[in-house]
């Protein structure tokens, strides 16, 4: 079970999104089922909803590939819910929940 950390750049807006997507896709390609991918967004200082959309897409990708997906936002500086202006507390908006959901689904599959 390998663990990879992908660092997001300081600027993660629509102009930068393709590059970020590429690095994430590369990481997924190199991961096996059960591996862990940590997307470290601690350095992100400027962002927009396209970045939030990318994280959501990555979570869906992880789910499809049975990879444990974690968003590391140590200072809670870029919560997904704020990027999307969303007041809902659904699973996608919480990196912890996303991680837990991915884990629990994986465990279910193992059983």
């Amino acid at each position, binding site marked *: 079970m390998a663990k990879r950390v992908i660092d997001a750049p300081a600027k993660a807006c*629509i102009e930068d999104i393709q590059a970020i*997507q590429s690095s994430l896709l590369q990481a*997924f390609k190199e991961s096996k089922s059960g591996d862990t991918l940590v997307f470290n967004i601690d350095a992100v200082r400027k962002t927009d*909803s*396209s970045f939030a*959309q990318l994280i959501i897409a990555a979570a*869906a990708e992880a789910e499809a590939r049975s990879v444990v997906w974690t968003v590391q936002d140590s200072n809670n500086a870029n919560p997904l819910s704020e990027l999307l*202006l*969303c007041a*809902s507390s659904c699973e996608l908006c919480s990196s912890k929940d996303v991680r837990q959901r991915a884990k629990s689904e994986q465990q279910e599959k193992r059983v």
Partner: protein
Amino acid sequence: MNDKLIETFLEEALELLDGLEEHLLVLEKNPIDSDAMNAAFRALHSIKGSASMFGFEKAGTFAHEVEAALDHFRTNMKPAIPELTELVLQSRDYLRWLIDNPEGSNDELEAVLKRDLAALISKSPEPEAAAAVQKSAISKPASSLSSPDRTWSIIFTPSRDIYRRGVRPESLVKELQALGKSSVRAYCAAVPPLSQLNSEDCWLSWKILLTTKVDEAAIRDIFIFEEGISEIKIEEISHDEFMDGDEVKRLGEILSYKQFPADSIQQALKKQRPIGEILISEMNTAPELVEDALLEQQHARTLTQNSKEDTERKTIRIRSEKLDILLNLVGELVTVQAQLSQAVKDSGDRHVQGITDYVKRLASELRATSMELRLVPVDSLFAKFKRLVRDLSKQLDKELELKVEGGETEIDKSVIDTLTDPLMHLVRNAADHGLEDSAERERKGKPRVGTIVLSAVHAGAFVRISVRDDGRGLNRTRILERAVERGIVAADAKLSSDEIDQLIFQPGFSTASVISNVSGRGVGLDVVKTAIKQLGGNLSVGMREGEGTEFTLDIPLTLAIIDGFLVRSGRRMYVIPLSSVDSCFDRPRPPRTERLLTHGAEFIPYASSRTLFGEDEAAPEREELVIVNIFDAKLALGFDQVMGGYQTVIKPIGEVARFVPGVSGAAILADGNIALILDIAALARQIKSGERTAKS
């Protein structure tokens, strides 16, 4: 349970009961007033909830019964029929009794009230077509927090290429948020997995609930460059969808409003788990429906929370005893500060003098602020009489109406508390003696409904409260006859009209031939007069034969601290309330016989303090005159010396001194001596009537 919590509950419960009474009286006059209906319901609902929480089980249970009856009319959008308001008013009185007597109960009365409430519900039919006409008038929303606001549901699905067009969709959502109170939900379900995503495409959409004063056009303006490109759906939604009055609806209620099958909701509720979770996971309910309902519920919470925070930010509940303590401390500070100023003045230290002046200014501001804390609108007092007049109207079988003028006038809370009983007497008197019954009024060409007017107005250091009716006025012949019968005046006494009017304030005096439980026991007006005098005020009466009577109460604004004007006469010091002072100047001492001062074009009644209070010391050659205002008149008072402005803490004076005419209290001066505080209105009356005091 914590005594302080119980005290808080009691205070709030009494306020709610007073509010309930007021709303019911409004409903009685206008049975389709939906605001009053909702406000009455909310008051009952709050009483019910908090009574049960604080252990007042009987009150809580009974409030529930009353609430059910009121809610029957409210939810069915029926007018509040007189039987309902009458019954709920009686129930309100019983609730008050239950709260005052938590251990007691009046089973018989309670049973009758419950029976009648139940009967009222059962005999009241479901709304028919005719009632539907009134639906708009008795519409349910009536949310106090959002009456001028409308709530919009805005679904924004950006075009796929919005990012490529250089538009940030979240910026548009932010602009919407700036228009009012909003709740936003982003929909992400359409976002494909990363490997299938063209990251420059937008797969997100948003739903925004916006409560705002702006109209649809203003909302559309935000999307002006997206019109026809992105999908924008705007529709107004009713507050009923997610709110019940000011209460947030439960999820099940919101779903129910959305025509969601009641059976499914009931089944889900039985499972004791979050209803939304069960509906989605076990009943194949579309998640969007539950998510929508959750968003609406959240929006309702946002609205109520904002409303509560607004209110909480503006007001804070403090026990009046704490304000009394604060004011006493400020009073002591004012006295000590005066002593400090005097000591520093004597020492001649200019540096300390500057600091002392600053302390004096701060003490003065602190005093003014503390005094303001205790001021409450007189409306809170007048409101109590609406129910009284309504009940008297029924009891005496007279059509009566109470009007209130100047309810916003502010007066010290301690003064307000002491005015309830005197005003109660006067209002009862007006209803019983002053006002004629409707038939008699019609015969006299008057409106059938007799009017009692309670009014308040500021005048310098006083507030003038009057109780006026448009009834028959005082019967002076009858008053004089009665006074002679009772031996109050001699049979051959020659009294002026004013003197006859004053007889009604004699102890035990009444012209009523029949003693009723409303008035007429002769224990009213003298008690009122004494109570007002004890407040340092004055009660007077005026009337026009056949047109009505007016009782006027001149009450000092505060009983604690005043800005005074310090004057000296011989060795004695006096304080005149500064707000009464018009002007002052000196002149050669006039002859003792002078009674009138010529001041510009005015003739002003004059009296020397030496004559009024008796000074045997040699008088200086010159006299300092202080001209004071008493409502719409002036009075000139002569003193030996004017000392200047002086902040004064009023100290109560003894029983004997209390009735010394012209003196309302005493003050301790900086040097420890005592100054008497002059009651200017009383002095004016004394001068007018030619009385002389104090030589004794």
